């Protein structure tokens, strides 16, 4: 059972739609402990990705991811642009030339993407950033892969773990990003970037799992 290129394209379109729907919610989260632009940033980026996808629809999955990452880098700005951009560019690097992905390929891609985010942002788990959502998701993927789970099983487990990671940011005191200026006052709010990361992994589970063949 593998993940097709069409499924990947569908995933990215769905993510763009979900970001667009939750624009105001992300903005609200970022107003509470940041500067209130995370919704606008992500939406600007994913709308730009949508316009770029037709140009690579017949290319390999690596090209799709790389194009997505470059587009995010060049349209989002802020903290999330380089971070999500790097995530996708690194995913593209390890999936270059592939027209479909096994679960092992997918886990390798997510690991490369995650490492890129950490390399770029230098955040550790517990700093109250998107890392706190992505890390448990990645860990879940790895153990699913190791126990020989199916693609849908692994993706759903990753989504559940990501959601818990996102929720676990609420009590944290931010040590990275704009929320860190608030110090103790950042506790009690869910991190906006962790939230957009959960949407990413959740839509992956929804679209890739159902279309996995």
């Amino acid at each position: 059972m593998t993940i097709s290129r069409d499924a990947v394209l569908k995933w990215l379109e769905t993510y763009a739609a979900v970001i667009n729907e939750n624009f105001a919610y992300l903005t609200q989260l970022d107003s509470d402990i940041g500067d209130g632009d995370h919704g606008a940033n992500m939406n600007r980026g994913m709308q730009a990705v949508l316009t770029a996808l037709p140009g690579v629809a017949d290319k390999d999955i690596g090209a799709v991811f790389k194009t997505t990452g470059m587009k995010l880098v060049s349209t989002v700005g802020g903290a999330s642009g380089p971070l999500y951009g790097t995530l996708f560019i690194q995913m593209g690097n390890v999936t270059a030339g592939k027209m479909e992905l096994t679960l092992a390929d997918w886990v390798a891609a997510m690991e490369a993407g995650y490492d890129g985010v950490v390399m770029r942002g230098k955040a550790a788990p517990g700093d109250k950033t998107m890392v706190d959502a992505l890390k448990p998701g990645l860990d879940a993927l790895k153990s699913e892969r190791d126990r020989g789970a199916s693609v849908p099983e692994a993706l759903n487990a990753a989504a559940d773990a990501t959601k818990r990671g996102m929720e676990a940011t609420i009590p944290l005191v931010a040590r990275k990003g704009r929320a860190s200026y608030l110090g103790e006052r950042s506790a009690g709010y869910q991190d906006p970037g962790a939230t957009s990361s959960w949407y990413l992994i959740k839509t992956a589970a929804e679209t890739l799992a159902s279309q996995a063949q």
Partner: protein
Amino acid sequence: MKKLINKPEDVVVEALQGMAAAHPDLIKVHYDPNYIVRADAPVKNKVALVSGGGSGHEPMHGGFVGMGMLDAAAPGAVFTSPTPDQIFEATRAVDGGAGVLHIVKNYTGDVMNFEMAAELAGGEGIAVQSIITNDDVAVKDSLYTAGRRGVGVTVLVEKIAGAAAERGYSLDQVLAVANKVNENGRSMGMALTSCTVPHAGKPTFDLPEDEMEIGIGIHGESGRKRMKPAPAREIVEMMALAIVDDLPFKTGDETLAFVNGMGGTPLIELYIVYNELAKFLQGRGIKIARNLVGSYITSLEMAGCSITLLKLDDPLQALWDAPVRTPGLRWGA
């Protein structure tokens, strides 16, 4: 939201068009990606200075492009760091062969986007160095956090390092000057009102008619504390004390005192603030050798001010006094 704009999504580009129309003798504006370069760029064999950041802080940074200050500025969306391609293309457009200094305010997004741009420029063989300004004493500093924000000192770095570059200093020398300014400068800001990001359409935060916020950031990020409005004297004392104690500034020090308006505060109030600051510093035996009073780093229409103090020595003072000719700052030329 009442603003003199057309559509919120056109604010940045239309303001750039207005700048281009108003200052063709000083600057050129490139669109898509958006950046501003001085009219005579690239200046051969001069170290080029590139800065950038979110829009909404005008005249910073685009208004500081010109002789004696920046070679280029990359304006992002309102309050959002510019993207690496903007910064990279601006860097490439102004490189005169002597290397490029990136002047970056310490915000995670700014730092990462400039870092990626520097990587791209490095890939093309352009020598890039970076200075990250982090002068805001309202933020507690720590090795484990994003650190202090870059605010008022950024303007002073741009002016002083710009003069050094104009004098023919090497990239490392310009960087050293920039670092010296950043290390010897401290700032703090306060707000009487919030600002409204155009595409958000409502104030970033609620500040009731009987409260003000001390230690505010330049994007409407919350500050150190809220309190009842106080006389200018007390506000200045509170901010100046935090600044003076931090470096610390000592009796006998010579300083540049910079009183900055946040966008919605008129000059008459800034002079009252400056008057209080001058009295405060005089009381501590700290000398103001140079000053700057006006709205140079704004937060859209926010009412409020920030104070920046820079410890000056003779070389820095001479670089400050050197001619500058930009839309936002001009003397001696």
